[in-house]
């Protein structure tokens, strides 16, 4: 209905292969970007910026990283948080030990560190698949956290392993307000999402998906499995590493290794299952869902509790949250394995075919 496609024809392959081939989509995305970059910083209050939008973007980035590995390349990982931790602590060390290093360079280097760790823990993927591999990635989760906690040099010998992000600025502008942190996060996430979209529509993305869908056929047409899988681990870990760096530097400010525990890994896995496996959009939708659900529950439950007279404590709400997450995972796996992104797509198809049925 909203999609009036008639007359949008492509005369070159470049037009046909652009990320958003439909004019309406391009307009929509442009409007969204204007809204996110201009309107939100102008009107957003501190709480929304620093407690909701910034973490949402960071989680979306981490989910995107996991999605590259799991959704596109088909390698399940339970160690996402570990790669984030590498990013966070590597950034800390780069800033600490390389005087005057620009923060963006530190982020990129931290991402590369995470990528290297990712490659190391991706090595077993050459011999093992499926949940064997998933279990193997748990090793990364435990080993990395252990290493950060035990190797004092990494945390600059802080007693409890806690680090505090140093002050930093970009082009002389100190990044110390919720707005500036939000805009920085948004910029990085936008660029990385764009790069991910580009990867997905080019040779690398197709190689990932080929390995995911049928590895024997992939190797028969000449896709080297080892290189492809390791590349997936590297790129995925890079994204997670940058997400971890942002987690420390634009969201929390002060982090301990335990912040990157297995629970966080699971949360990010949930984001992609609910949001949509193998979809860049899905990473954002899933992150939004997981970030917003507790907030919605906290808004909704107390009035219900008052109205019904049943006392619902905060602990119960957090348990309810766990149950809802778990239940939703099962629900989505059964009903819509491609998550919210697929629902979105179906809705879009309906609008494109309107008034005819889908």
């Amino acid at each position, binding site marked *: 209905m909203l999609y*009036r496609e008639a007359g949008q024809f*492509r005369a070159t392959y470049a037009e046909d292969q652009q990320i958003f081939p439909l004019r309406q989509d391009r307009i929509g995305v442009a409007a969204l970007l204007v809204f996110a970059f201009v309107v939100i910083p102008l009107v957003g209050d501190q709480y929304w910026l620093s407690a909701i939008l910034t973490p949402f973007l960071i989680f979306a980035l981490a989910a995107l990283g996991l999605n590259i590995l799991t959704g596109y390349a088909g390698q399940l990982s339970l160690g996402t948080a570990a790669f984030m931790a590498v990013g966070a602590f590597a950034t800390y060390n780069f800033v600490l030990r390389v005087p005057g290093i620009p923060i963006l360079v530190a982020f990129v280097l931290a991402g590369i560190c995470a990528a290297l760790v990712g490659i190391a823990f991706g090595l077993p993927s050459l011999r093992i698949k499926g949940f064997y591999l998933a279990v193997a990635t748990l090793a990364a989760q435990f080993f990395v956290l252990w290493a950060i906690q035990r190797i004092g040099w990494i945390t600059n010998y802080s007693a409890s392993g806690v680090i505090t992000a140093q002050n930093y600025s970009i082009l002389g502008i100190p990044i110390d307000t919720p707005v500036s942190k939000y805009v920085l996060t948004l910029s990085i996430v936008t660029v990385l999402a764009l790069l991910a979209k580009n990867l997905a529509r080019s040779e690398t993305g197709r190689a990932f998906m080929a390995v995911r869908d049928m590895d024997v056929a992939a190797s028969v047409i000449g896709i080297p499995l080892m290189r492809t899988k390791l590349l997936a681990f590297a790129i995925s870990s890079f994204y997670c590493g940058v997400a971890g760096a942002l987690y420390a530097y634009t969201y929390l400010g002060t982090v301990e290794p335990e912040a990157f525990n297995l629970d966080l890994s699971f949360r990010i896995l949930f984001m992609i299952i609910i949001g949509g496996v193998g979809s860049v959009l899905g990473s954002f939708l899933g992150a939004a869902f997981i970030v917003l659900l507790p907030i919605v529950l906290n808004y909704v439950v107390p009035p219900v509790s008052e109205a019904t007279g049943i006392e619902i404590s905060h602990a119960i709400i957090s348990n309810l949250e766990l149950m809802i997450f778990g239940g939703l995972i099962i629900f989505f796996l059964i009903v819509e394995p491609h998550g919210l992104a697929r629902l979105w797509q179906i809705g879009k198809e309906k609008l494109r075919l309107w008034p005819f049925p889908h």
Partner: protein
Amino acid sequence: MAETLDTFPRLLMHHAKVRPDRPAMREKALGIWQTWTWREIAEEVRLVACGLAAEGLTRGQHLALVGENRPRLYFAMAAAQSLGAIPVPLYQDAVAQEMVYVLRDAEVTHAITEDQEQVDKLLEILPECPKLAHIYYDDPRGLRSYAQPQLASYERLLERGRDYGAEHPGFFEAEVAKGAAEDTAAMHYTSGTTAHPKGVVLTYRNLIECGRNAAQMEGLTDREDVLAYLPLAWIGQNIFSYTQWLVAGFCVNCPESPETVMTDLREIAPTYYFAPPRVLEALLTQVTIRMEDAARIKRWMYGYFMGVARRVGGRILDGKPVGVADRLLYWLGDLLVYGPLRNVLGMSRVRVAYTAGEAIGPDLFTFYRSIGINMKQLYGSTETSVFVCIQPNGQIKPDTVGPPAPGVEVKVTDVGEILIRSPGLFREYYKNPQATAEAKTPDGWFRTGDAGYFDQDGHLKILDRAKDVGKLVDGTLFAPKYLENKLKFFPYVKEAVAFGDGRAMVCCMINIDFEAVGNWAERRNLAYSGYADLASRPEVYGLVRDCVEKVNADLAADPKLANSQIHRFLILHKELDADDEELTRTRKVRRGFIGDKFGVLVEALYSGRKEQFIETKVRFEDGRTGSISATLRIEDAKTFAPAAAKRAA
């Protein structure tokens, strides 16, 4: 300057100079719309012309074009004209034998074909057409191992042209300069509902003046987009996708294949569109079928807003006063239904749309206008270079074809036949002075053979072919095409053939639309084994009877036509087919032929029998023939007394 632009090659050179880098033609191929600019086309036409000259094509000779709408066939057309040779497009779906007459009559020496399928046909009849010495093909697929000396690829022709052009600098320009407005521009063979087809000789002046007048009237610019999807051999295709293309300098788009026309139409979304009624009918059938599968609420919404559109859509399009509430409703409908519908039909950008080639049912016509598409009727024929009457914007009446187009004189004889004099009038029938003399009066009027009259607003109303309009025994007017078109508005009815001239009542043979009725049957879990089986089902008879009776109710409301209600009908066991000569190649019903071929059925309709056995010969695609037989049921339909029916609101 305008005086010198009096041949197509000169027009082409003009565009190449004035708008060299504007897209002139596109073709969907290899997944995208490959684009040629005017400059590129002019250059390619030059090469092809040189190549054809090198291969011996000279002034006055004929070049046959056989294939779908492919840019290269258009280029070849312009190339031939540059040399003063005359392009003769053939119907690409004709079987080989049907091509023999034209190829011999026009003494065709060179032919440009689309692909292996067409090459095979020409090779098959080569012994019967000794003059045909050169056959070129566009798509080399499968033709590699063909060794016939007459065959060469289009690429080879280009190569020859490159060499020839290098050897003869200035040759092309000199040839173009030799052309004159009175030269023959093209020859189109009339589909020939009777006897052999006749070659209609049209000059540059005929085509260009006609095309230019109409383009001015409709305000066509060089920004129009047109989809070329109808047979090249049809004069309309020549006018809209070639003559006016060169006159206005817009862009013509060739679809990927006949199967993808709907998708391609939607992608291009032409601004200038034309379709014979059967295409519009097929589109409406698609819409109806797909809406039937929609959820109930959507069906309701569709039904409701289509009602609103019928009531006020046409008036809004004509700029007539409409109440605020209705305007608001129509606006809402446009948002929810009409706009999306235009979008899925690929007609969002249409500024001017014509329906031509045949009379259109008023309901079908109104449907498109009501959803906001500026559809107009156009009256004309091959002999008049199409344009005789055009409905001007804002003065659209579904049952007339509008006033005469600029520069056209129309008069109606005492016996009701329409005569025409216009700059577009053909010069002659090729090598057929007798037919020319029959068709053209000494003072230059062309006898159309159509019956009609001017209404009080000066709009021409066409009844039918003059020879087809008849009278029932009681003297009531019987216009079979009018009835048939009313029936064909229903998605379930594909073709209808009405009989009644000199009879006491009107009876009708009907072809169901296999897809629409098949869909209907599936939704009712009605199993059927094929077309003949489905057509014989009592349920289907019931469905068709409803359609017939609705038509009758309508007819009863019109005092002049009330007596021509359909009393009896039957559903044919086979689809009427051009290969069996029941339809013309432009898919017009050949009523007389059908009356003869199915004589027993006609007799059974009027003798009151309940069923009738019939055996008919059919011809398959590959040229084999066979016969099929069936016992057809004949049913009565309810008719309405003229007084009992209320006038439609």
